């Protein structure tokens, strides 16, 4: 099995993460990979999606030509609303975030450290334009922060590390990571695997993780 073919596809990871979002939750999904989760929320659950630019109750993308350029999500894509939606300004939106009213934020990552540090806003590179958006607010305020990411970069470099090399989005903020290879909790003891993707072994995950990896799978 080549590394490229091992584990879940991106959409399968999104589907897996969606299973763990409880009915009735208020959830913010970050730009990119986390956005896919919205497609896989089980039909029997009502989840209220928050977008930080000012909407609770985000619905799916509009049919082509039916959207409003002023009804967009944080990724600046057109969206719709669900019954029970509400609009609000940025101070109220971030009051929800900073004030601990959202149950869950699911974010992408450049790196996640074994102590829960998250780096996802800047590679710190020469000539890179720094842009942070709402990421630092989300990790500082939302009750639980999950990360969804490929386990390694395209060139095979692990993204789960002992200590982040990129600038931090927040210190000790991540609770759980969903990757193509596994579901991994951040615990006081560092990374602990709670679930392996089908066909993936613990050792294969450990070999692709640049930090000690515990095994907390149910017996």
């Amino acid at each position, binding site marked *: 099995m080549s590394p490229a073919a091992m584990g879940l596809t991106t959409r399968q990871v999104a589907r897996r993460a969606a299973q763990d979002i409880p009915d009735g939750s208020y959830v913010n999904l970050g730009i990119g990979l986390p956005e896919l989760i919205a497609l896989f929320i089980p039909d029997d659950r009502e989840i209220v999606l928050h977008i930080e630019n000012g909407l609770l109750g985000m619905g799916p993308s509009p049919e082509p030509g039916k959207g409003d350029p002023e009804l967009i999500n944080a990724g600046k894509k057109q969206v719709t609303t669900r019954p029970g939606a509400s609009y609000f300004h940025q101070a109220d939106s971030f*009051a929800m975030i900073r004030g601990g009213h959202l149950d869950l934020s699911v974010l992408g990552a450049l790196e996640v450290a074994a102590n829960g540090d998250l780096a996802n806003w800047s590679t710190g590179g020469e000539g890179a334009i720094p842009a942070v958006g709402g990421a630092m607010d989300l990790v500082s305020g939302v009750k639980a922060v999950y990360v969804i990411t490929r386990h390694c970069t395209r060139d095979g470099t692990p993204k789960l590390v002992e200590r982040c090399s990129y600038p931090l989005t927040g210190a000790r903020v991540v609770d759980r990571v969903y990757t193509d290879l596994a579901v991994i909790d951040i615990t006081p003891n560092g990374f602990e695997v709670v679930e392996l993707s089908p066909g993936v072994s613990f050792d294969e995950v450990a070999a692709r993780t640049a930090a000690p990896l515990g095994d907390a799978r149910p017996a």
Partner: protein
Amino acid sequence: MIDKRVGSPREAVAGIGDGDTVMIGGFGEAGSPIELIHALIDHGAANLTVISNNSGSGEIGLAALIRAGQVAKIVCSFPRSTNSTVFPDLFNAGRIQLELVPQGTLAERIRAGGAGIPAFYTPTAAGTDLEAGKERREFNGRPCLLEHALVADWSLIKARTADSHGNLVYNKTARNFSPLMAMAGRNTVAQASSVVKPGGLDPEAVITPGIFVDHVVHVPNPQHESELVARGARYP
């Protein structure tokens, strides 16, 4: 499935515990959730800290809660009424504590609590007796005071219309502190004169998004404090 409706004021306040901090909406009678307050009297939780702009009038609503001896401390901007001696009598007898806060500072501290802002500076009250015990710092040459956020275990508020997600709109000047208290309460209970399905409120006109509300109680014909006082009503 999200449905925050509960069957009665009694059920809505059942979780309030002795020693809890309870925010109660209203400015004068406008926005005062009388039916929830009366349910709290029936419930009997004691040693409460109440955060509310006033201290009630007559012997109903907030004044009745105080008179019942359930309130150990009130955080308040204007605990005086032409129609009630309940608070003054207990205060002068040393049986209730008062933290007096300017109205705008009270509002801002509650908002801060709901917004995750632990503290802020304000020019209000600098140079007055209410500066006592507060840190002072100058900004742009103006003395300001450090004020801390207020949060509560419970917020009891009154709305005109709610949907089952907890989205709320209010009636006129009854809005006052309620949207802020909804944010600052770990458990927020809203009584509403009417309750509609999700989609029954215009998303552009929602004042309190449902994320801030935990329980919705339908109270179709809420009583008015001034009418109760005028006819000398007492609770219970």
